[in-house]
């Protein structure tokens, strides 16, 4: 934290940003920089680690420390960095290919361990950097260069993946809504543990309008529900729709059918059952939740336990002496 008022500029550098014109990445970069300025963390205490992919060029455009590492491995690099430098604010930039395909193992394990880092997962449901192949989040049947007759893969739901790994913070936001992104990023940063933020990001070249349903002014209000903790899950252009519990699940209802706001389910990101129901909501059947789906405030972070264990050993045994170690056990004089 600093007394000086930080601005977006403090988190930028002199390098030209080279994403395609119209790419959703620009907005995410800008929102991240603004969120960091508002958080008040100094640029030299921020490290942004990425893997490979369009999104992973991100660190090159930051005014902080950064590393563009290798494909899928950013969570592992970030883990080592955070364990060695526990005071850093560590951000991981990844995509649906980098994070869920080649790097799925590392993403699973960083979430499981609950490292105190922030992960921004750019989900555009396509491989952009390699020029348009289907990804593990592409919808079934998607026609791409590598699936000219349609994709046969069952896609991952990043939310269900993360929750399955024991995620303690999961949020979803959209590249066309900078204000929402900034708020979500700030909330993610405030969370002690692995914060996974899935950003619906548009690849203007290879999968344009993939999230149109939630971004298009005409349709977005009918197809997405903005989550706010403690508030009823209400949505629609006329604020006339919501969810109730029925058959152990969430059911979309309209107020005109006789439901009152009081009857609608209120969002509680700490309620495990509700969180899983929210993660299961898919665009094929209902509106999708946008915002902080899950927040678990009870889990320990791996990095704090890691440092505490070292400290407890130091307290118990005193600082180690190399000389004593060499002399330990059986020795004899000649």
């Amino acid at each position, binding site marked *: 934290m600093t007394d000086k008022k930080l601005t977006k500029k403090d988190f930028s550098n002199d390098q030209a940003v080279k994403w395609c014109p119209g790419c959703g990445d620009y907005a995410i970069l800008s929102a991240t920089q603004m969120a960091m300025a508002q958080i008040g963390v100094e640029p030299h205490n921020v490290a942004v680690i990425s893997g490979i992919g369009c999104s992973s060029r991100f660190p090159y455009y930051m005014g902080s420390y950064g590393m563009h590492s290798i494909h899928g491995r950013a969570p592992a690099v970030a*883990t080592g960095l955070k364990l*060695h430098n526990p005071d850093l604010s560590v951000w991981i930039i990844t995509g649906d290919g980098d994070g869920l395909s080649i790097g799925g193992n590392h993403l699973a394990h960083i979430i499981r361990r609950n490292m105190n880092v922030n992960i921004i997962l750019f989900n555009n449901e396509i491989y952009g950097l390699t020029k348009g192949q289907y990804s593990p989040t592409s919808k079934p049947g998607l026609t791409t260069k590598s699936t000219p007759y349609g994709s046969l893969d069952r896609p991952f739901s990043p939310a269900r993946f993360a929750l399955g790994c024991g995620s303690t913070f999961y949020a979803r936001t959209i590249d066309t809504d900078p204000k929402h992104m900034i708020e979500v990023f700030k909330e993610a940063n405030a969370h002690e543990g692995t914060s996974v933020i899935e950003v619906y990001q548009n690849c203007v070249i290879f999968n344009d309008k993939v999230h149109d349903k939630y971004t298009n002014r005409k349709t977005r209000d009918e197809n997405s529900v903005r989550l706010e903790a403690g508030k009823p899950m209400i949505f629609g252009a006329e604020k006339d729709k919501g969810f109730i519990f029925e058959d152990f699940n969430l059911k979309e209802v309209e107020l005109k059918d006789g439901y009152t706001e009081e009857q609608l389910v209120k969002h509680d990101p700490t309620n495990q059952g509700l969180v899983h129901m929210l993660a299961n909501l898919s665009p094929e059947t209902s509106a999708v939740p946008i915002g902080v789906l899950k927040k678990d405030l009870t889990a320990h972070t791996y990095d704090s336990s890691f440092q505490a264990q070292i400290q407890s050993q130091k307290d118990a045994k005193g600082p180690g002496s190399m000389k004593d170690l060499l002399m330990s056990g059986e020795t004899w004089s000649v």
Partner: protein
Amino acid sequence: MKQIESVVVRFSGDSGDGMQLTGTQFSNTSALMGNDLATFPDFPAEIRAPQGTVAGVSGFQVNIGSVKVNTPGDEPDVLVAMNPAALKANIKDLRLGGTLIVNIDSFTDLAFKKAEYESNPLDTPQFEQYQVIKAHISSQTKEALSELDLDTKSKERCKNFYALGMTFFMYARDLEPTKKWIQEKFKNKDVLIQANTMALVAGFHFAETIEAIGDRYQVKPAPIDKGLYRQINGNTALSWGFMFAAENSGHELYLGSYPITPASDILHELSKHKNFGVKTFQAEDEIAAVCSSVGASFGGALAITTSSGPGIALKSEAMNLAMMLELPIVIIDVQRGGPSTGLPTKTEQSDLNMAMYGRNGESPVIVLAAAHPSDCFEMAFEAARLSLEHMTPVVLLSDGYIANGSEPWKIPDISKYPKIKSKLVKKELGESEVYLPYKRDENLVRTWATPGMKGYMHRVGGLEKEEDTGNVSYDPENHERMIEIREEKVKLVQNNIPKQKLLGEDKGDLLIVSWGGTYGATYQAVSAQIEQGNKVSLMHLNYINPMPKNVDEILKGFKKIIVCELNGGQMKDLLNKEFSCMAEGYTKMQGKPFMIRELSGMMEKALEDIKLS
């Protein structure tokens, strides 16, 4: 009592019979009695193969001497076989005329079947060549412990101490250190202290009583340098070497690792020493292990990662990233038999090519190799020093043989080591200063600024970079220049390593070249040739990339060069490529170390050839 210079004893039995422990006690006692020694544990790849089968046999060989001992010995003088399977697995190695001690209680029809013997092998004429002692080890142990309040199974479990007691009598070993060890090991379990001690003494007395044991032998203390000694194996020495380098350099030690035989013991050892500030992280896989170390190195740690061949293969992309970023990291490869899963518990030196060339693009890294168990301490320190002073990955090669083998080690005076000077920048950059992360010194080494340092913010990445700034650059000429810089940077390490030493004269007929864990065998074999007056010298390489400057000159001083290595000839190829020196290869790929007599035979033949030509 007869005096002998040295004796080789091998203990063998089922993997649950406690043979490693027995061998270790024999070794420790001998070390305390002033002998020089070398050990070689040999265990099966399976944790507990079916009891009584050859696959489940575990062995421990130790060579003790009143003279300098460099290897665990070519062939045992004494073989202890706790069951028929152990006999089957080991009898071919026993010296003709050697002593065989068998636990005759275990020589039953069922046991023969499990060991795939048709009948009692001891009845065959083959065994007339040995001095066979048939001891009722199991039943005598139980008998000796009959008064104790302990179940039969636990009593029988003490039989390894009975066997140890027998060998202690034969070689006039002191019982006290083992008695003391038993007391510490079974603290608060009085009955077990009693049981194991009684078994040890019973074995000792049995050997004293029977006439089957002819002579008793004495191995006097060896004439070794004065000083304080301890025993050490390679993996422990290596762990401590890095801990010392961390203390010396002021950079916290970070290990990212994934369990793999025979490297896991380094992870185990370092995980104990959290009070030294050592950080160990058992990652989800080999790739995450090395990547976490790259992250820690970016953060300013003395970062290392440990593995063996298959794991190193997985790490190659991240090693290349560290090379490209120019971050210090040490990659430890405790080599085992390859390719693929190969022979996990056996030794080999076949990862040299992978260390040198196993990455995409032009990817020079420093490559070092440790020569013997205690040398792992020295080479770990060297690996850390060169990595931190030259901002480059170092591959440190060890192998299963020296990793698990142990020897007496004169405890070094750590105040005498040079201070490692890392390239870490000063704490804060002035307001008007601009940090150039890839600006280089006269050795082409960049500086090291780490996240958290004010003013030094910069980005690194795997994409090709521009000189000085480190910004991404696709410029063709820049790319070529950067490749040359990275190559030259590693070559310049030559100025920071010691000159190559030789055993023997610097000119002569035959130069034996070896590297890594074969040192003990090549040293002893070449020493014998020199004693006989032959013009043979040994060049044992610890610094492989770059090699010391004088290697070229040394190679030119001999009529014939033979490179001895436990692989298909990888160092030979490397020398011929670098120096066009027409080196020949002498190789072995059986998962076992060289025997001295193999090397002696090879050298005698080579000297003959030189005479004839």
